[in-house]
């Protein structure tokens, strides 16, 4: 597959994307969304766990970006996170960059 190049603000997430951490990550991502001009890329290289709170968080950020007419991308998704994305249908609204 061809590598896609997009110009957008890239945020590296780290650790466990669960209910306990969701609020802190939400605040930080919303600050990033206020600053970004071409959309947002979330780099999942260092995410070790994601549960349904993470799904809610991503849907929320997708909606915020959509209001501004901007896309949300993810990259470096590991097999566990990929399973959550596929199961929840998140790939229908969030593009995975290769």
């Amino acid at each position: 597959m061809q590598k896609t190049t997009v110009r957008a603000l890239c945020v590296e997430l780290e650790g466990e994307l669960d209910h306990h951490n969701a609020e802190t990550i939400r605040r930080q991502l919303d600050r990033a969304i206020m600053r970004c001009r071409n959309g947002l890329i979330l780099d999942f290289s260092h995410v070790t766990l994601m549960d349904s709170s993470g799904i809610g968080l991503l849907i929320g950020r997708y909606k915020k970006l959509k209001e501004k007419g901007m896309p949300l991308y993810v990259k470096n998704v590991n097999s566990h996170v990929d399973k959550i994305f596929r199961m929840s249908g998140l790939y229908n609204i969030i593009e995975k960059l290769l």
Partner: protein
Amino acid sequence: MNTDNYMELIFPATSQNEAFARVCAAAFAARLDCTMEDISDIKTAVSEAVTNAVVHAYTHQKGKVILRGEISKNTVTFEIQDFGKGIEDIQQAMQPFYSTGNSEERSGMGFTVMQSFMDRVVVRSQPGHGTTVRLEKTIPVNSMEAAANVALS
């Protein structure tokens, strides 16, 4: 009962304890031939059930959660019990994307995640008294090791 190992853990329903509970569950299951994927599945499913207790059963009020683990042959079972408000309609609560819609951004995918990652999910609940979620997963026995055991016996 053919229980090979069991454990019981009691802790307050706080969001900090979501990580604590899932790490304990993973450590308990680790004596089986778990792959990294099995461990991730167990951690995520237990995390969902504990999060439900924190967010829905007690709605961030004080409360107690009991996590029980049991290993029988190559099947691990966890029970996550709370004494909170309970679920009126379990079938509805288990529907994908169903959420009681509080102010937090909830995906309504908690039970769907549990069902996808575990072999069996059973929910028992009594409104006003609490909820118990039973999660079961059978870990395939490592075929190489099984063959070696047969050869040795």
